[in-house]
C-alpha cells in the first residue's frame, strides 16, 4: 500500500574484514543448523512453520546468522578453509571460529554442499556420521540437485526462504541499535504523506538472500559466478519489481543487481525508475523531514541528482534495447522534469507509439500534454491531453491539465467548462481510475507473476 510507504536508508551490510563481529552467543552454530533444517522443510512461496521460525528470530540473531551463513558458503566449497576476519583497529586477521566451532561448521557445510561422501576433507572426518535426520535430508537434496545440474541447492532454496519471509511476513521493526555493532544491519525510514514518520531497524532477510546468491556457481565452475545464472538474474528483476510495487525501496538491492548484471535492460530500467521515484516530492519530502543519528545518511540525494542518475540509467537501458517502449516513456518523463522539453517530446512520442497497454499510452499522452505546453505549442498540448482523457474518461489529471492550459491561454470559458467535468466525476476515488496515481508502481505490475515464475521450479505454485 502507498500508506506506510517505506524507504530504506542506510543499510549497513557489513562485510568481513574491517568491521566488528557481533558478540556471538554459544549456540550460534546451532542456529545455523536450525536454519538449514528450515530450508529443507520450507515449502517455497509460503509462510509455513519453517519460515515463521526463522522470522521469529531477533534482528541481532539474524545479524549473527548472516555472518555465519556467509562463512558457510565458503566452507561448503572448500571444507578445509578457515574463515578469517580482521578485528577493528587491527591489521592482523584471526580465525572467525574457534576450533570446535570450525569443526561443527564443517559438518554443516559438508551436508549443505552435498559433499559428505565425495570431498576428501568431509570423508576424512566421517562427517556423515554426525548428521541428524535434517542434515541427511539436506545432503540428499544437495546431491540430487547437483545431479540435476544445479549445484546450488542450499543457496537458492535458502535465498527463496529468506525472500518468502521478507515478502510474506508482516513487516517487523525495532528501535535503532546505535552504534552499528557489526553483522549486517538494515534500517527503514517510514513515511506518510511525503514526510518521514519514523526510522527503525529491521530484519536482514534481503541481505541474507543476496549474500547466498552471491555464492552461486555454475555446474563446472569452482568459483562463484552468480552473473552467469539466469535464476539469479530473474530473482533480482522479480524482487526489485516487488519492492517498487509495494513501495519498499532499497537502493542496495538494485545497486548489487547492477554490479552483477551491468548490461541487463530490465535491471537498468528498474534502477532508472527507482532514481526517478527518489526525485518525486513524496521521497524528497521524507528526505527533508527525517532526523537521522549522526553518521547515517539517506540513500536518496537531491531531486536534480536523482533525475540525472535516472536519465543515465534509462538511456543505458535504451542502448541495450532501443525498442524498449517503457524506457522511452520513463526517460521522456525524466527529461521533462529536468526541463529538456524537446528531447522529452521525442522520447514520449516514441513511447506513445510503442506503448504496450492503455495506461502506458495514457502516460505518454498526459506527459506530452505538459511538454507541448512548456514548448508553447498549446494546440498540440490540448490534443495530447484529449487523447489521454479519451483513454481514461474518469481520470481527473488530463481534465485539470486542459483547464489549466485554457486558463493560461486566457480562455476562461473553456477552463470552467472543463472543470465542470471534474466536478461531475464520481466522488468515490476508486471509481475514478486515474493511472497517474499509480505511475510510480505501474512499471512493476508484473511482480507477482515474475515471483511465481521464480518459485515454480523450486516447488512453488505454478504461475
Amino acid at each position, binding site marked *: *500500500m*502507498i*500508506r506506510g510507504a517505506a524507504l530504506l536508508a542506510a543499510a549497513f551490510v557489513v562485510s568481513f574484514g574491517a568491521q566488528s563481529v557481533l558478540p556471538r552467543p554459544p549456540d550460534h552454530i546451532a542456529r545455523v543448523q536450525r536454519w538449514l533444517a528450515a530450508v529443507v522443510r520450507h515449502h517455497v512461496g509460503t509462510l509455513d512453520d519453517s519460515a515463521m521460525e526463522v522470522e521469529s528470530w531477533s534482528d541481532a540473531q539474524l545479524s549473527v546468522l548472516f555472518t555465519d551463513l556467509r562463512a558457510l558458503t565458503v566452507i561448503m566449497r572448500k571444507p578445509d578453509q578457515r574463515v578469517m576476519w580482521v578485528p577493528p583497529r587491527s591489521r592482523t586477521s584471526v580465525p572467525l571460529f574457534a576450533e570446535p566451532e570450525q569443526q561443527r561448521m564443517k559438518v554443516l557445510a559438508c551436508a549443505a554442499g552435498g559433499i559428505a561422501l565425495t570431498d576428501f576433507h568431509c570423508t576424512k572426518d566421517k562427517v556423515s556420521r554426525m548428521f541428524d535426520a535434517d542434515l541427511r535430508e539436506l545432503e540428499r537434496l544437495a546431491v540430487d540437485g547437483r545431479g540435476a545440474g544445479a549445484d546450488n541447492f542450499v543457496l537458492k532454496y535458502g535465498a527463496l526462504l529468506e525472500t518468502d519471509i521478507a515478502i510474506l511476513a508482516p513487516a517487523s521493526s525495532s528501535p535503532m541499535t546505535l552504534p552499528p555493532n557489526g553483522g549486517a544491519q538494515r534500517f527503514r525510514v517510514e513515511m*506518510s*504523506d*511525503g*514526510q*518521514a514518520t519514523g526510522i527503525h531497524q529491521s530484519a536482514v532477510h534481503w541481505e541474507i538472500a543476496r549474500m547466498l546468491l552471491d555464492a552461486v556457481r555454475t555446474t563446472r565452475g569452482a568459483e562463484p559466478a552468480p552473473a552467469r545464472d539466469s535464476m539469479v538474474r530473474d530473482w533480482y528483476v522479480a524482487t526489485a519489481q516487488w519492492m517498487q*510495487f509495494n513501495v519498499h525501496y532499497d537502493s542496495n538491492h538494485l545497486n548489487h543487481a547492477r554490479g552483477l548484471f551491468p548490461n541487463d535492460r530490465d535491471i537498468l530500467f528498474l534502477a532508472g525508475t527507482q532514481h526517478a521515484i527518489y526525485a*518525486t*516530492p*513524496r521521497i524528497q*519530502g521524507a528526505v*527533508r*523531514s527525517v*532526523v537521522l543519528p549522526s553518521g547515517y545518511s539517506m540513500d536518496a540525494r537531491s531531486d536534480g541528482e536523482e533525475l540525472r542518475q535516472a536519465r543515465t540509467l534509462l538511456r543505458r537501458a535504451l542502448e541495450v534495447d532501443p525498442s524498449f517502449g517503457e524506457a522511452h516513456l520513463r526517460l521522456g518523463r525524466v527529461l521533462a522534469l529536468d526541463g529538456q522539453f524537446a528531447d522529452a517530446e521525442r522520447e514520449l512520442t516514441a513511447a506513445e507509439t510503442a506503448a504496450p497497454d492503455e*495506461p502506458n499510452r495514457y502516460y505518454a499522452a*498526459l506527459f506530452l500534454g505538459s511538454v507541448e505546453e512548456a514548448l508553447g505549442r498549446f494546440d498540440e498540448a490540448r490534443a495530447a491531453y484529449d487523447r489521454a482523457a479519451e483513454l481514461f474518461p474518469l481520470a*481527473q*489529471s488530463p481534465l*485539470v*491539465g486542459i*483547464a*489549466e492550459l485554457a*486558463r*493560461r*491561454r*486566457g480562455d*476562461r*470559458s473553456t*477552463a*470552467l*467548462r472543463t*472543470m*465542470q467535468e*471534474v*466536478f*461531475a*466525476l*464520481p*466522488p*468515490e*476515488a*476508486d471509481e*475514478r*481510475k*486515474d*493511472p*497517474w*496515481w*499509480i505511475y510510480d*508502481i*505501474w512499471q512493476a*505490475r*508484473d511482480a*507477482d507473476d515474475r515471483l511465481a515464475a521464480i518459485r515454480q521450479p523450486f516447488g512453488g505454485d505454478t504461475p
Partner: protein
Amino acid sequence: MILRTAFVCALGATLAAAPQNTFKSRVEAVRVDALVTDHGMPIRGLGSADFEVFDNGIAQQVDLVSFEQIPLNIILTLDMSDSVAGDRLDHLRDAGRSVLATLEKGDQSALVTFSHAVSVRAALSGETSAVRQALDQAEGAGETALVDGVFTGMMIGESDAGRALQIVFSDGLDTVSWLTPAAVLDAAKRSDVVVYAVSVKAAVKPEFLRDLTQFSGGRLYELEKTADLASTFKAIVDEFRHRYLVSYTPRGVAKDGWHRLDVRVKRKGADVKARPGYLAGS
C-alpha cells in the same frame, strides 16, 4: 486484474453525490480585496476617496469600494488524505461547521476535498446543508493532491461573480498532483479568489501555500495543533468580512502581462494587505 488490484491498493474510499455548478458572467474591471488595519484592528468607514491604487506604478481611478455588505462565496478546500484521521478529522469537521455557522444571508459555500482524488463534495450554493452533510461523511484516505485541489477550489470561486474566499487546509506535502505548483500559482495571479491557508507545523515548510496566499493577498496560518482549527477558520472569515473590495478599470497600462499592484490608504498608521499584483490577459 493487476490494474484493479493496484487501484484498490492506492485509492481510498470517499462518498457523497456528484454536484453541479453553473457559471455566471464576469466583469472586466480589476477587483482587489484589501484588508486595512491600524495596529491590527480593522479600519471601517473608508470610501473611494480614501484609497490610492497604483497599477504598474500608474495611479488609477478607484471606481468603487465596498465593505461588509458584499455576500461571500466561501470554498472550503480540505485535505482528506491518510493523515487526516481521528482527532484531526474531528477538528477539521468542527472547523468546517464553524465556518458554516458564520454565513449570512446571500453568502454561498462549497466543499472540495482532496486526497489523491479531488472531489467537489458540495457545489457552490446558499444551502449549507449539503456542505454540512458532506463534511460529516468525508473520511481521510490516500495521498495528497493539494495543488490539484487548490486549483479546483479556485475554479469554483471563479465560476461565480461573487466575492470568493478559498480556505485551504492541509497537513502534508503534495505527493500526487498532476498540476505543478508553478502552474497553479500562475493561475492564482490571474484570479480574484483570495486564498487563506492553514497548515500544521512540520519539518518541511509549506512553500506552495506560503506563495499561494501571498500572491492571492490572503494569509497562511501554521498551527501547532489542529485543536485550534475551528477558531482559526472563524478568524479567517471574520478577517475577510472586514476587507474592502476595491475595483477600478485599468487605464494607461499594458493589457497583458504581470501588473504590480500597490494599494494605499490616505490615513496615517493605516496598514494595507492586498495581493501584490495580477496577470492580465485572462
